């Protein structure tokens, strides 16, 4: 195929427009650099009425919001999912890795849970603490100023709690807990589990004049049309454009490779324009990969040349290795005290108003690393599935279920809003044996070789998942609830989610001091190629029991500052 070249020359080409790519776009363009942002999906603006799903009702969808075409339902704002037509991935051995991709401007930031947790001091030196994995080449103090800047720029609600490994930031005030959350607080405290207000990037108090203030529709997964939640487009890329930044957006453009010259330095990227099927090349002095941990690894591994025979920047053979996702375990319960509820609007923000950060000391436990607990429930908006098994909870009263007629109406009202759910989200240990690589035998519909995954949870994660279930059991008991399904046992790894399902995949281009055992340096610059940076979650050395987005952005801001200073020194 002929590659069409453009004569345009960019200072920086940014691949991907999610949390990392958006932050790089903002910082680099504000420094006066000319940037191209290459995004594999379409243009997306949460305020565009043709794309908007916020405030839609179930009946406005012919499937009442069911999850047939979008995995989290019709109104969720992720264009993509674990399975995308024509873009397969494969598995090695008995792996079942689940790779979620969202192909749109802003990527997965449009639908995520907005749980915005900084890593704590311990999270950067886990090897020093428990001998497993590797320490980061930076400390919390290195990243702290960037976390502070991210808090102030983007907005996150929370409370000062003085918890050593869950550091405080610059918080907006949190919303009051809902009824089921008050029950959770009481029951969790009885089990000596700490509960604090959530830390979510939702604007509960005005932060600037470009962004609206939350109006409590619970629709953050639908992306907010007044920009009161964090999405990369609305909070980073659009403001950067409005500030006069020199930014060219290339949408529906799937990057295939990073192009290099005879010295092995990057000269730009080649991408496939999904609209016309042709391949194009863009020229840039610096390439910033922010396509997501696995997509960036795929681009690097597909960028083979005489100078980089093992894939770009892969002399360590570690690109794709140390892939790890958060652990996950869930349980749900029926609360008899929440039957026949008085109905009022308890939508709140799009997520829980309280949560439990990791509260135990692993020295006293049979597994390393911790997890936090998210809590959910309430009188949510009816959508496809509401009313299924309408009176199944009759079993808790020794009654038959089913039937027909007006009794089903009263059953519906009796049990509406009577459940509570718990999700443990924890840290796994990064293993070299968990990785993605190029499948030599398969290409996607654009002709690009696809990823193949090899992943196996270890005893560490399985034991952690067991602990989650024991904890949920105790909390449910303390609140007088009835679990909705049997406690999962060893046969199902205690309900441990499949790797990839929590959508926190990180680690594929990990950072370190030594080029032999890491892919990028502390500024996310590739050891082997000094004009290529990776600013998604690929550089994470370890995951922490925190959601990755806030750390992706703090690191991307720090890397971008470094790129700007290198430009000033005329090093590119």
């Amino acid at each position, binding site marked *: 195929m002929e590659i069409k070249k453009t004569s345009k020359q960019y200072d920086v080409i940014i691949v991907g427009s999610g949390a990392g790519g958006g932050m790089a776009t903002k910082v680099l363009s504000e420094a006066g650099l000319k940037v191209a942002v290459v995004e594999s999906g379409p243009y997306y603006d949460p305020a565009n009425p043709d794309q908007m799903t916020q405030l839609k009702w179930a009946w406005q969808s*012919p499937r009442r919001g069911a999850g047939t075409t979008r995995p989290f339902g019709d109104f969720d704002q992720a264009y993509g999912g674990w399975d995308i037509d024509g873009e397969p991935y494969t598995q090695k051995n008995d792996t079942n890795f689940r790779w979620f991709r969202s192909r749109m401007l802003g990527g997965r930031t449009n639908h995520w849970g907005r749980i915005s947790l900084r890593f704590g001091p311990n999270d950067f030196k886990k090897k020093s603490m428990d001998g497993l994995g590797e320490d980061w080449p930076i400390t919390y103090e290195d990243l702290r100023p960037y976390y502070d800047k991210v808090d102030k720029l983007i907005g996150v609600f929370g409370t000062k709690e003085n918890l050593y490994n869950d550091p405080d*930031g610059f918080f907006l005030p949190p919303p*009051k807990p809902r009824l089921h959350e008050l029950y959770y607080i009481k029951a969790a405290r009885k089990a000596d589990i700490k509960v604090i207000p959530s830390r979510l990037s939702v604007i509960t108090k005005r*932060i600037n004049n470009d962004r609206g203030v939350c109006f409590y529709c619970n629709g953050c997964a639908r992306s907010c049309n007044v920009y009161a939640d964090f999405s990369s487009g609305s909070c980073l890329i659009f403001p950067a454009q409005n500030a006069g930044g020199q930014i060219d957006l290339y949408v529906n453009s799937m990057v295939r490779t990073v192009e290099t010259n005879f010295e092995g330095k990057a000269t730009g990227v080649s991408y496939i324009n999904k609209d016309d099927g042709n391949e194009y090349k863009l020229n840039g002095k610096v390439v910033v990969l922010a396509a997501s941990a696995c997509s960036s690894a795929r681009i690097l591994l597909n960028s083979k040349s005489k100078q980089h025979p093992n894939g770009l920047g892969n002399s360590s053979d570690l690109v794709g290795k140390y892939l790890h996702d958060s652990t996950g375990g869930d349980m749900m319960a029926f609360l008899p005290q929440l039957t026949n509820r008085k109905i009022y609007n308890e939508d709140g923000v799009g997520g829980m108003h309280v949560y439990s950060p990791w509260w135990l000391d692993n020295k006293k436990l049979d597994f390393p690393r911790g997890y936090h607990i998210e809590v959910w429930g309430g009188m949510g908006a*009816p959508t496809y599935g*509401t009313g299924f098994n309408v009176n199944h*909870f009759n079993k808790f009263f020794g009654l038959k279920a089913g039937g027909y007629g007006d009794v089903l109406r009263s059953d519906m009202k009796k049990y509406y809003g009577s459940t509570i759910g718990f999700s443990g989200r924890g840290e796994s240990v990064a293993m070299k044996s968990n990785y993605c690589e190029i499948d030599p035998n398969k290409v996607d519909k654009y002709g690009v070789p696809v990823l193949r995954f090899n992943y196996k949870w270890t005893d560490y994660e399985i034991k952690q998942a067991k602990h989650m279930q024991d904890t949920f059991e105790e909390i449910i008991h303390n609140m007088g609830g009835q679990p909705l399904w049997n406690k999962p046992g060893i046969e199902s790894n205690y309900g441990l989610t499949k790797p990839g399902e929590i959508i926190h995949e990180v680690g594929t281009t990990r950072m370190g001091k030594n080029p032999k055992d890491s892919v990028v340096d502390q500024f996310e610059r590739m050891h082997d190629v000094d004009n290529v940076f990776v600013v998604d979650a690929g550089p994470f050395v370890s995951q922490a029991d925190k959601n990755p987005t806030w750390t992706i952005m703090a690191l991307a801001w720090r890397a971008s500052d470094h790129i700007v200073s290198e430009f000033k020194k005329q090093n590119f």
Partner: protein
Amino acid sequence: MKRRDSIKTITLGAIGASYLLNGCYGVTQEKIKRSLTRYKYGRTPQEKLYDDKLFSQEFFTDEELTILNKLCNLILPPNDYGSIEEAEVVQLIEFMAKDIPSYQKPLRDGIDWINEQSELNFNQKFIDISENSQKQIIDKIAYYDPNLDMNDLPDEVQWFNLLRNLTLTGYFTSEVGIKELGYKGNSPNVWDGVPQEVLDDHGLSYDEEWLSKFVDQSKRLDTAKWDEDGNLIS
């Protein structure tokens, strides 16, 4: 001859009567098509194509739709808030049968089963027997022991459960159904905690030490400012 075909042959004579009833229940493929042009819910072009493809297909026959409509009305009879027809429940079932093709066989087999029962017991198609007779058939499959696994129960019990699920979800996700349920959200508002009377009913309260930390909704539009230690000062 397949069971379904045999039933078709047996019941051919009764079709005339069913057609007359269509007028009462009013759900036909023609009407379904007309009602499906109004959906606007932020689709991508590919998603829109997929929806359009499903809209252009017909799964249930008009006769089957009539039976479904009758069954849905037995499951949730109309009241002052609304009806199966206003909630467009049968339209939803037709759509879901195409959207989730694994629904097709059980839904259709169930309709065949209930016609078969009607023929056996009353010598007429289900739609042509009295409501009392219809209920006599349904009574045999409508209840189940919730301690058992649904998959272990007879096919017809599973079918009726599926139909009950689709009916309930269809009604309570419709405009009239949500109104009847009383759901108050999905609209701009200001959350300021659980109403006091509800807290009292449950014997719960907000922690004194927490109260000062929550958002003061009267100052939500004042721009946030912090001191250098991260204390909010606005």
